[in-house]
């Protein structure tokens, strides 16, 4: 899907949304992922706590403009993720 790094996962280089069953959602550039973890670069982590934007509102804005990087690298345990999809699919 737009990458020529054959030693990486299909989504390498693609900005993805990693959703969780809880209030947390991650957005970042996928570096790699396997059955254990998802590695994101230049990532943001949003907690949809009371008083904060909902996941839907946060992702709608992210899909339109992108996200402000808060972490150079984030490793998401695969067990925490319920879905991984390109951010542009939400636009």
């Amino acid at each position, binding site marked *: *899907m*737009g*990458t*020529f*790094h054959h030693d990486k996962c299909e989504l*390498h*280089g*693609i*900005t993805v949304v990693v959703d969780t069953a809880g209030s947390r959602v991650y957005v970042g550039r996928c570096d790699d992922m396997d059955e254990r973890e998802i590695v994101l670069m230049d990532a943001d982590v949003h907690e949809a706590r009371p008083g904060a934007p909902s996941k839907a509102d946060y992702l709608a804005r992210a*899909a339109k*403009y*992108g*996200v*402000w*990087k808060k972490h150079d690298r984030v490793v998401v345990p695969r067990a925490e993720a319920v879905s991984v999809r*390109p*951010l*542009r699919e939400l*636009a």
Partner: protein
Amino acid sequence: MPYDPQLVQPMRDEVTRLGLVELPQAKDVDAFFAKREGTVLLFINSVCGCAAGGARPALRIALQNEVLPERIATVFAGQDTDATARARSYFADFPPSSPSMALLKDGEVVHFVPRHMIEGRDPASIAFDLVQAFDKHCARAGSKR
């Protein structure tokens, strides 16, 4: 750390050949944006093959449109870092990403193409979105480059 300039030069040439004005220093960026009137496209170039490899051909396709921005320029992220930071200051409400493209009219951003709307897409699709923005906001007749 910036890449070897020789490695990057073909990526610069790919867009300057299209008529984009390269802004290598912050003062060049300020001079470019000093004139607020009219339409401006700024392309933030990048080494990243996953996205910029599609963005540059998309730009080539889009610049064949019948109407174009009045002025078109480029900075190179990760290479000309001061110039890129200064360019981004002119649309500071948008999270930085590269490659990306900003279309401004009278100093205000009217269309922005962030990296995630470039990566993984074919150049024609990226160009289609850009052309729609040109048609909506620009008036200068293109020259079918």
